[in-house]
């Protein structure tokens, strides 16, 4: 795959929170315009940092983040916001605005497109509101539109999180441990929903995960990280015990 056809290209991405102690040690990665890429690795290895560098919620120290031909690392102000609205994001703890209604949370996905004063007065364009109802329907929360976000269960909240991200009409979806706060059954349902909706819309997904089984089941490609560097890049079937040992270290847990 060449850079020209990739949706996202990371080149030499470095992040140091403390100078001299890199969390990411020069990540090179290309993400195809379709399919789900799972990033797995032990806690504290920089998976969340990697994902947050892509939409610049975390400032990278060095490197390039080329998204659809633009280096996001160089953007600032309005240009950065314009790039962010094309990248949806789903969070581990859902990060819904708890005191707003489900509908308002879903419409948060349109904030990058609607002038601030119109959004404040809740004068969203009619097609946005129609799309939001449709989106809620498709994540199975149609009747919850006017309920407060903090009245929902974890699985329901993550559905709203996905709806909010997809309302942006994104060309890339980032998901930071989207199922780590959920029970196993809900985790699978959320992954199915996310995969299904993104496949239908042709949106590539980059997802951080703890759960190797879940990654194997849903991802088209798995990137294994250890110590701030990529140590594995390939399909789920290539994740042998040997590879997992290289990613996570130790072995008693593999039994």
């Amino acid at each position, binding site marked *: 795959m060449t850079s020209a056809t990739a949706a996202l290209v990371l080149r030499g991405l470095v992040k140091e929170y403390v100078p001299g102690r890199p969390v990411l040690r020069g990540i090179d990665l290309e993400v195809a315009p379709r399919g789900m890429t799972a990033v797995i690795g032990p806690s504290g290895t920089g998976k969340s940092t990697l994902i947050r560098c892509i939409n610049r919620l975390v400032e990278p120290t060095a490197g390039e983040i080329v998204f659809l031909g633009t280096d996001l690392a160089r953007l600032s102000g309005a240009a950065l*916001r314009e790039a962010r609205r094309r990248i949806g994001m789903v969070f581990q703890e859902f990060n819904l605005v708890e005191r707003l209604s489900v509908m308002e949370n879903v419409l948060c996905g349109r904030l990058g497109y609607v002038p601030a004063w119109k959004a404040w007065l809740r004068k969203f364009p009619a097609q946005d509101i129609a799309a939001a109802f449709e989106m809620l329907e498709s994540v199975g929360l149609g009747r919850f539109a006017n309920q407060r976000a903090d009245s929902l269960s974890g699985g329901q909240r993550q559905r709203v999180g996905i709806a909010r991200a997809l309302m942006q009409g994104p060309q890339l979806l980032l998901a930071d441990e989207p199922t780590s706060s959920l029970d196993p059954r809900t985790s699978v349902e959320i992954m199915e929903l996310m995969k299904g909706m993104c496949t239908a819309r042709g949106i590539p997904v980059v997802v951080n995960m703890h759960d190797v089984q879940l990654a194997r089941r849903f991802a088209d490609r798995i990137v294994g990280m250890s110590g701030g560097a990529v140590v594995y890049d390939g399909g789920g079937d290539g994740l042998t015990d040997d590879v997992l040992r290289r990613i996570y270290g130790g072995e008693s847990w593999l039994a």
Partner: protein
Amino acid sequence: MAARAGSPEAVAFPPNWAARAAWVVLAVYVVYAASTMDFTWSRFVTGLDNGARFIGKMFPPDFRRWELLQKGLLESLEIAVLASFLGIVLSLPIGFLAARNLMPSWVTWPARAVIALCRSFHPVIVAILFVKAVGFGALAGLLALTVASIGFIGKLFAEAIEEISLKQVEAVRATGAPFMSLINFGVMPQVFSRFVGFATYQLDSNLRNSTMVGIVGAGGVGGTLFAAFQRFDYDFVCAILIAIIALIMVGEVLAVQVRKIFASDTRAKAEDD
């Protein structure tokens, strides 16, 4: 050094010597302060006697000059409401600018300095300053209480913002929202009900203070009260005090209503259950 379980040196509740010393210092100071103030029992008893005569003169309260009383009360009310409104409107942006989790330090420092300045003097002192600056009357009281409101609401509002969940803000930021939408959707929903609480508390506080700034000539019923005191019209004083109590109670009821309207969770959590 970790003491081993069961060994003689293991202590479950180690003594806090600093706290004990602080209690002792406090006790010593209380005794000392009381001793310097010529605080004797006999003086207290004479005082009680005097107080009884004073209260006797206050009854029955004299409401014959009710027009004067009404004029003062209405002016107090106007001062309180206008000062609260101005204070709330001004403290909103100042509170935002002072929140250290949203703004860079070169913005928060000046904003915090303004708040600290507004808080450093009691409203009566500020009222005296404004009486000297803009002359006797309600304008001075209005300005004094506005300053007090900015100090109080600005500080608490900034603190409330500093306690919000940044995860919700992060999610709104990730959508590419412009800064004002970030504030309106990521920050305000988290602090609005507390802000309404501060604002109604300040309205209540302004109502009480607006009856007092008149003593220094800054408008309101306080001036009437002070004049009555000086003329030994204790029955009229009593009438004014009763009227003030009534005003404060009405204010209390109003504040509860305002809180109900603005801060209630109209989208109740259990709506759909």
